[in-house]
């Protein structure tokens, strides 16, 4: 019962955060809202017995990535004048809703064909570090390694991109 209430609470927060993200003019406010969404998502992960993911969501997403974004936003010292003046924002928003509605409805239809399932905590370390680690390093080893290469490439790319001016001079 509590789990259900928790779900509704987190869900509401996540949606509100997302709405805030796309509606606030200034990215700083948007980012703050987005953090709310991410944290509530972490909560939802926990409700789904994914304890490792709960931790990772908080540490990597809400922690590392979002602080990086916030850092950059602050680093660039964005003023209201820097922001693009988005005149037709509302037109685009409502037009967008119109366009997206079929996609959402279609996905909903798809989801409805799935069987309903329980969300009670499974236990036995389901979603725990050890079990997930076993799956990750046994069945998903190759994708894992590929992702590591991707990260390396991204690292190098970021250095090259951001440091371009200095290298050229």
């Amino acid at each position: 019962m509590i789990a259900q209430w928790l779900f509704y609470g987190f869900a509401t927060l996540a949606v509100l955060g997302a709405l805030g993200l796309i509606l606030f003019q200034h990215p700083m406010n948007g980012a703050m809202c987005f953090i709310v969404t991410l944290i509530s998502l972490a909560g939802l992960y926990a409700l789904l017995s994914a304890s490792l993911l709960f931790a990772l969501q908080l540490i990597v997403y809400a922690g590392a990535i979002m602080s990086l974004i916030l850092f950059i936003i602050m680093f660039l010292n964005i003023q209201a004048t820097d922001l693009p003046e988005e005149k037709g924002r509302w037109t685009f928003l409502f037009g967008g809703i119109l366009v997206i509605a079929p996609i959402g409805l279609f996905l909903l239809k798809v989801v409805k064909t799935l069987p309903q399932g329980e969300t009670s905590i499974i236990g036995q370390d389901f979603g725990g570090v050890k079990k997930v680690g076993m799956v990750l390093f046994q069945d998903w080893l190759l994708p894992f390694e590929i992702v590591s290469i991707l990260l390396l490439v991204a690292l190098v790319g970021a250095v090259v991109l951001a440091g371009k001016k200095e290298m050229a001079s």
Partner: protein
Amino acid sequence: MEQSAAYLGLIPLLPLAGATIIGLLHLSSCQTCKLSERTYGILACIAPILTFLFAIKVFLDLHGLPVEARQISYQAFTWFKVGELDIAMGFFADPLSSLMLLFVTFTASLIHIYSIGYMAGDQTFGKFFAYLNLFLGMMLILVLGNGPVVMFVGWEGVGLCSYLLISYYSEDRANVLAGNKAFIVNRIGDLGFVLGMAFLFWAIGGSGFDYISLKANAHLLSSTTISLVCLLLFLGATGKSAQIPLYVWLPDAMAGPTPVSALIHAATMVTAGVYMVARFSFLYSLVPTVGLIVAWTGILTALVSAIYGMYQDDIKKVLAYSTVSQLGYMFAGVGLAAYSAGIFHVFTHAFFKALLFLGAGSVIYALHHEQNIWKMGGLRTKLPITYWTMLIGALALAGCPPFSGFFSKDEILYLALATGNPGIWLIGVLVAGMTAYYTFRMIFLVFHGSPRDQGLFDHAHEAPTVMTVPLIILAVGALFAGVLNLPAIFGGGQVVSHWLAPSLAELHPEASHETEILAIGASVVAFFIGITIAYRKFGSGAEVPVFTGFASFAYHTFRINELYDLLLVRPYKAIGSAIEYFFEPQVTDGPVQLTTWFYRAAGTVFKLLQVGYVRIYAIYMVIGLSLMSLLLSQSLK
């Protein structure tokens, strides 16, 4: 039945070999050292003289055979054989071809000899004789071919030589144009020939496509097919033998050297059409209607060209139109199924027309290539041999009684009357009178009266012996050739007709002696009227006339050339240009251009969508996704 004789193959081969040798010598030596004209002349004369000897042998061999079996043939090799089409490169001689063979090789030999004198000093002496030999070879293939296809080889081959020799003086555009005209007009006729052969082949050619098999199977043909084939073949004949509507090339063909005019455009090649009709007499005799068309075409051609002939001022043009006119007579003869009469006229005509042309050549030679008869006059004293020989030729042409032309022409006219075609006969008699008129107009203007151009007259001199001897020999022929076919009424035995009889499917109309006498009398009267008028007008000098009205119209040959030019040549060229400048870029290339235009247009339209903003592209993508979702939602459930 048939006798095989390998030397038949040798007859066309000899001149062809001669042509090859002379041609190669000429090609290899034309830039370094020139061989002497004498060498070329002797080399060139070997082949015609040898073939003439062979022709006599052919004649004797045939003569030695019983009348019904007078055929010898030789099959050299299978030329090509595809399915039921089996064409052998074979040669075949029967009385008809042997007669043709005799006079062709005879006149050719004389003209070769004559040419040595006439062409003296020419830049490309060797080339001329190579062409002449080549022509003789092709003409002999035409005559001796054992079937229509082999005949066609010669047929086209002589056309080629005619083209090459007409445009012999190729520096002058007019000469080359005349050559082109001859070739193209001949080709129009050849189309008829080829199609005629094709129809004939598909009808009865499957079991042999030579004359003997065709003759044997001719009874299997339906009359429509025969008519069609005969008409198409006749189209070929009108091209080669210069009949309406394709006669226009022959007068222009006089651009070639005069011996060429004598050999190709008077004596031999142009009579090939008559020969062909006689050769196919087994078909033509089955369709008298087509025969009538042939006869009327012939006689109308004779009339029209005789009218032209009366107004020409170029000595060779006069003779050219007279040739066309005489060819018309021949067609009238073969058209009325009087094949031997037609062929006999071919035979006599070869003598007197070659003689006249060579005589004209001698005059032209003497006057340094002046051809206008209004600048000549009184040459009788300067050129006695030429004068007397040409006079004999003119009398023969005009149909003066004891001369050869009289008998052959009269035979045709008599048969026209006998077969119940008084129209043809009347026109024929009229043309006979006109022939006498224009022939003697020419003779009087050239040889009688006083010189019109004293400078030319003073330098004139008789041709060398090498040229006069052939003249004399031909004159003898022109005098006496008629005797060979003396009709019964003069106590003759019609030797030629009897000789030709096995080759031809001839009709022998019955007619009374009165008819014959009427025919002869009318011809003689026409001759005398014609010659009298000519004498009255030109006998003792006449001034250059100014043509007006009808005369001017006739002088310009009824503007037929201009008409053809307007109706055929110009539109053809115009269409050619139109294709190049309009149809090709606009119409046929249109679909291609349209495709490129479509791609360009589509590109311009799609360019508008490329606004450049990433967000808009994302919207496009989402719209696409959304449409796909809509579509997929339909199929879900």
